[in-house]
């Protein structure tokens, strides 16, 4: 248990008669890059919402960063970062103001915020943009800044919901390097994507079909099990049933 960033046992969410997430059981190890795949409408978003404390599960149990998803959602929120496909940055605030704002809402001290702001601007090479509004940044930089902002409070786990949709191939790769680096530093990454080549970058992936996890393993294991050459084929075989 101690080595798991996330543990879910029989986690279920029902909306009326409709079971969006049907008793999913899985665990994510500390420092792992975990790919959470599934077709549109398979229940990924609902599952993520339960894990980040935005939606109360109907059944089952789960802990995230060691905290219970039923009772300790506030503790969970302190320990995770979240970045959705729509960047959670304020386009009309400057780079610095955005970092300050998010540092502030996570209750970082003034000193810590100043430190963080400096280190993020340094690491992302954003010096010349520090006082420009985020709306003027190129897409790739917005995205990396968004990731940095999601991790401003040094979370144990970062949830990324389709972080790379529509981004050019070079920027996509730069983004994944940030993910590797974070994972190297012991941060757990929980990521969803529609790019199957990105699924290959994950340590382990799960594939959801109609609310259930139908496959879980390293990309290599899955390809061997389905006797195919790419994650794309694994996905298509599973989702088509």
């Amino acid at each position, binding site marked *: 248990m101690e080595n798991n960033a996330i543990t879910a046992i029989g986690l279920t969410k029902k909306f009326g008669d409709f079971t969006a997430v049907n008793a999913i059981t899985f665990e994510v190890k500390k420092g792992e890059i975990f790919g959470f795949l*599934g*077709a*549109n*409408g*398979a229940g990924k978003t609902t599952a993520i919402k339960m894990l980040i404390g935005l939606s109360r599960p109907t059944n089952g149990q789960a802990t995230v960063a060691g905290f219970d998803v039923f009772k300790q959602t506030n503790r969970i929120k302190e320990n995770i970062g979240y970045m959705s*496909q729509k960047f959670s940055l304020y386009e009309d605030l400057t780079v610095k103001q955005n970092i300050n704002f998010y540092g502030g809402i996570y209750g970082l001290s003034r000193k810590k915020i100043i430190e963080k702001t400096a280190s993020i601007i340094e690491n992302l090479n954003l010096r010349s943009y520090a006082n420009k509004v985020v709306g003027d940044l*190129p*897409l790739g930089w917005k995205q990396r800044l968004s990731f940095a902002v999601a991790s401003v409070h040094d979370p144990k786990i970062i949830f990324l919901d*389709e972080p790379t*949709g*529509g*981004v*050019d*191939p*070079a*920027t996509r*790769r730069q983004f*994944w*390097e940030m993910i*590797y*680096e974070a*994972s*190297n530093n012991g941060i757990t990454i929980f990521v969803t994507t*529609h*790019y*199957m*080549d990105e699924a*290959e*970058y994950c340590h382990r992936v799960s594939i959801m079909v109609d609310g259930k996890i139908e496959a879980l393993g390293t*990309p*290599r294991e899955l390809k061997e099990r389905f006797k195919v050459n*790419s*994650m*794309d084929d694994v*996905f*298509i075989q599973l*989702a*088509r049933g």
Partner: protein
Amino acid sequence: MNAIEIKNINKSFGDTQAVSDINFSVKKGELFGLIGPDGAGKSTLFKILTTLLIPDEGNATVSGFDTVKDYKRIRKIIGYMPGKFSLYQDLSVQENLNFFATIFGTTIEKNYHLIKDIYVQLEPFKNRRAGKLSGGMKQKLALCCALIHEPEVLFLDEPTTGVDAVSRAEFWEMLKRLKAHGITILVSTPYMDEASLCERIALIQEGKILQIDTPQNITNSYSKPLFEIKSHDFYQLLKDLREEPFTERVEPFGEYLHLTTNSDISSNSISEILEKKGHTQIEINQAIASIEDVFLDLM
């Protein structure tokens, strides 16, 4: 006569040059792909071709009609599926389709043969509101609505963005069947792997066309030595290779790294160098370039 003819098209919004000096043509009945990331200028070009936007410079024709002067003629013969899901969310599947059939002065029955393959999948949900459909279903409905008046030219702006891999694969199969009906299709996508499904493609980045050809010719044009490599530590391997003098570019590609070298170094010597750096389980092969390799190279 070409279905689409684009000559020296320029368009800027304020200080931003959205597209600059675009030239290409699409043949009748061709399935042509416009491949590039968000913000490359694809949607701007689509809006010009669908007569919604006037270019600053240059001109374009669709089925021989000028997009500015003859916009009314063009509007009768094209189908357009915008990048954002643009149907009436509070109308049902059937109501949306009926509405679009009616405003084009036709009926669902009349052109049912065109949409049949797609519509059978939608049929179980025909009374569901469009806003309640899944991403893949919405996209199919939007395609039906764009097709219902039997257009000569079909403009599909990022039809597969945000849609899962299965729905994407199905969507492309549908496009191939439509091609068989003789409809010219211009489709844009940020997914490089979809490029190979088009007959010809244009790679576009920051408003400029990088290359236009068949996918095959484009990948063949990649002349530099290319390897695929992996070892026990993927991230370390990436960092180590980036330090090597023979490396021109190294990028993650699925389970491998793609390494482009600037000299004729053999895979054996690369392998040796990596072993010295402590890598184990090294696998290294000559690789065939994909569209994405070319794109990364041209950027």
